[in-house]
């Protein structure tokens, strides 16, 4: 019995990633898009037309990563103009900063100035989150679980998911927010002691994504309560989530001018 356990342990070795910021994802990973302009207007129009989620605007050309489902089709049609880089640092405190334009800086602007001042003070050393899935396809949900696993071990920073909203400081919403979950989400959110934070994880949570036009959604909730963090992805990679929360709390910094140095 003991021998078999030791064998498992020996093969398991040390799994956790000591420096989460030092990880480089493979080149195939589709993270922040880089757009090299100018894009001929005919091509731009075609890209706008084929985009399955309406993330692309032809004139002036832009790609909204809050809508994008990272299918890579535009980059395959216009490889000389659009590349999805392996930069997984996709989140922002400002919805508008998720829109990438031609020849934009080599980073999504986090807009730390938009973060409510109480967040650093109250949650900087410990943050407990209640996850609510409202139409999520279980991919982002599994990645949020993975951010706590033996590899990423996010709870080393005092950040955890908890079962009860009474124990939580905020909600992480996944999924496009279905009509059938709208009431439960609002009850859960309001059960969290104020001040509470709201995080949208995944492109479907940020904008509705593929389901944005579905009559089965009910996204009024997002008009009534302030959103603190937008995290694009399909699904959100654990490193994208960790980077987003750590930047929100002020532990990581991501400003375009710092990236350029």
């Amino acid at each position, binding site marked *: 019995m003991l021998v078999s356990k030791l064998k498992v342990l020996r093969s398991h070795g040390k799994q956790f990633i000591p420096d989460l910021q030092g990880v480089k994802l493979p080149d195939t990973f589709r993270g922040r898009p880089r757009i090299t302009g100018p894009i001929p207007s005919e091509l731009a129009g075609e890209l706008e037309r084929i985009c399955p989620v309406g993330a692309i605007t032809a004139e002036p050309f832009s790609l909204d990563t809050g809508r994008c489902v990272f299918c*890579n089709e535009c980059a395959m049609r216009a490889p000389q103009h659009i590349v999805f880089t392996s930069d997984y640092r996709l989140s922002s405190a400002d919805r508008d900063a998720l829109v990438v334009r031609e020849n934009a800086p080599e980073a999504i602007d986090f807009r730390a100035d938009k973060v409510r001042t109480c967040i650093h003070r109250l949650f900087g050393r410990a943050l407990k989150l209640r996850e609510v899935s409202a139409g*999520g396809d*279980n991919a982002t*949900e599994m990645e949020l*679980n993975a951010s706590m*696993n033996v590899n990423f071990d996010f709870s080393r920073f005092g950040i955890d998911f908890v079962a009860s909203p009474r124990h939580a400081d905020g909600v992480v919403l996944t999924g496009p927010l279905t009509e*059938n979950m709208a009431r439960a989400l609002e009850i859960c959110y309001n059960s969290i002691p104020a001040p509470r934070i709201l995080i949208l994880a995944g492109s479907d949570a940020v904008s509705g994504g*593929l389901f944005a036009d*579905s009559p089965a959604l009910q996204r009024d909730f997002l008009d009534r309560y302030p959103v603190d963090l937008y995290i694009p992805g399909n699904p959100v990679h654990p490193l994208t989530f960790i980077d987003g929360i750590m930047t929100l709390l002020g532990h990581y910094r991501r400003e375009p001018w710092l990236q350029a140095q």
Partner: protein
Amino acid sequence: MGMNAHWDKTMNRWLKIDPREGRVSLNELPRLAYAELYDDLNRCLQDENFHVASYFGVTVPEGVLLICLVADDASGGVWLASYLYGEGGERILPSLTAVHPALHVFEREMTENFGICFADSPWNKPLRYAHDRADRRQSMNCYPFYAIEGEALHEVNVGPIHAGIIEPGCFRFICNGEQIVHLEIMLGYQHRGVERLLRETDNRLRQTLLCESVAGDSAVAHGSAYAMLVERLGQRPASEVLELERAIALELERIAVHLADTGALCMDIGYQLGQVACEALRTIVINTTQAWCGNRFGKGLIRPGGSFYPLTDGLRTLVRNNMEEVRRRFAEVTDDLLDSASVLARFEDCGVLTRTQALRIGAVGEAARASDLKRDVRASHPWGPYGALIVHEPVMAAGGDVFSRLKIRLGEVMQSISYVNTLIDRLDEIPEKSPRPDYTFPLAPSALAFSMQEGWRGEIVHVGLTDAGGRLCAYKLKDPSLHNWLGLALAVRGEGISDFPICNKSFNLSYCGHDL
């Protein structure tokens, strides 16, 4: 052969289709009277080789057409027939659920979506509260939960939001002390209108992505079902390379989720060594998929007509090496798990779904196989490399308990690893590469096509209909969870409520796949 001839005669009103063909012209679709449909289904379902793969309504100019696909596991055939609701003047139909409970999900959906009444249905409750349900007054807030009177009994409600990071669903337990007497599962919270969005768009890339998102942990399986379906409608069979690559992706998906579920089961009983070892192994597998196509869930990999991500020589070496690493380490985990009495004590004889129950509720996939019911599309209705390069013999277990469902996973991880190696060996012999995806080839007009895949949960069935202009005008999806949720509800009867989490994990069913 004798049996086949017998059923050919019994089902002579139905159209038998070779599942490798999977397409018929709509004017060949037999239209039966309801009494005929009822009699034929009632009779053929008495043979356990038969099960209803899909049964659904579509709106046509004359009204609502009910289309039924019956799969015959013995001959590998699929039988097809239809019935125009109300054609014989009847408004209320005799329910088949009363005789064959497996049909409850289909009849409930027809009632919910079209207001079709089934007489004598024992359980005709709303299925998912679809946004376009026939009766908008039906509200989730007044779901007619089954109730039992009695001083010794109490009810426990769990959900829709659960303790962990999982999807929402409402579980209502009736307990006698700590013992579960009855569990009823109410779903629908995840309903996103997938089928409606599929038929409302002509953008086939968008349709592909919608299918990839039916259930994120089955992105490859549902994506492949969609790709196969439009390729059949377009008479554009996938090349062998493409078929091989899709099968590799499907088996990688199966390995990854089985590892995750094994880890989750270990976690729920406090067996941390098994949990962390499986988490690490799953990471290896999904990172392999990420190295291949840029996404840990395989999103982006499956596209109609071709692929943007050929499995290059370098990737083949990576996959082979990682499979060997997982095989070696998972064998050690399995040894330790099977050697730990305290682990087995929690899993054995817990949450039993008997073979009879599994058959009656129409269980599919790994849950069926764990109850000694051989349902596996890779064996019964093989496609692509299955049935040819890979002659699949399903992993089976007989106990129907949590441990049996775990043993299916342990066996299938190893089996799928060997399949991946076989598939790559064959790939090495073919010099061609897959073509690039094609979203624009024309589809046959006025046709019906279906596709079946064995995802890691079980049988996935997609059915698509085109109009006279060759436009996809109706799309019907079936995730294996649709059948198996009732299996979970039955399996927990008599168990302590504290064992519910491991029973639930042992099935690991999809909420969004059910709710669509």
